């Protein structure tokens, strides 16, 4: 790839969610509130965090996720380059 075509930044999207089995009171509360608003048929709700970044290179993204953006004790993450 010629240098000129190299984008000077990448857009990264990180999704962080409570690990399976970890209490998610926010998710529970949302699920509990839905019927009262007339929304039925929602079986589960989980609330997590969305982090969107522009970075120069994707090299360190995984390390950032592991060490900063998610807490491995209670959370799991996934990330992707969106553009």
């Amino acid at each position, binding site marked *: 790839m010629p240098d000129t075509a190299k984008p000077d930044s990448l857009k990264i999207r990180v999704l962080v969610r409570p690990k399976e089995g970890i209490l998610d*009171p926010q998710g529970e509360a949302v699920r509990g509130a839905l019927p009262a608003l007339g929304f039925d048929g929602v079986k589960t709700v989980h609330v997590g*965090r969305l982090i969107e970044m522009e970075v120069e290179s994707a090299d360190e993204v995984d390390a950032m996720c592991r060490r900063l953006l998610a807490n491995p*004790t209670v959370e799991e993450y996934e990330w992707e380059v969106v553009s």
Partner: protein
Amino acid sequence: MRVGVTVFPGSNCDRDALHAVKLMGAEPVELWHADADLKGSDAVIVPGGFSYGDYLRPGAIARFAKVMAPLEEFAREGGPVLGVCNGFQVLCEAHLLPGALLQNTHLRFACDRVRVRVETADTPWTAACERGEELVLPVAHNEGNYFADAETLARLEDEGRVVLRYLENPNGSMNDIAGVCNEARNVVGVMPHPERVSDSALGSDEGLKILRSVLAGATV
């Protein structure tokens, strides 16, 4: 004895802790987050507040602050470290203590006085208490709901590392845990604020029992 108090951007109980250190009869030392230096502290308190606004997760950013490197070193060498509230969260994030502090199950900030029981006197921060002793301590937090996986939890209980236990659980924490210590027992994290009840002028100095414990250890 010199007791250091870390100051992160957004810490807000740092001044209270420094004041309490004076009341407990030790010399308070302010430890600025950007200086990798414990300034000869004999013990360190990581105080409450909202370090870095609690943005992302409480304690998540603070654990990377420069002052944390010497603090981790100090802790590994057996130096007494007490994390209070946000300080507890920071110590968990830094893996100096096991587990994590999740959002209160009722999803509200909880500011109240709660009764807790001292579950072990075998830490530098509870040495002056009796095991089984009840204290009334203030809590003020949004993420005080202690979580650890089943295995960790079992170990904490077996090894007597639950330091304080709520008699009335304000946040949904597992096994009513209000405070724990590390394996070597020198690092303690508690959600209640002993520094807020260290002055009889405010009606109670029960918190001094906890803070002063570390003085006893120092004379050994």
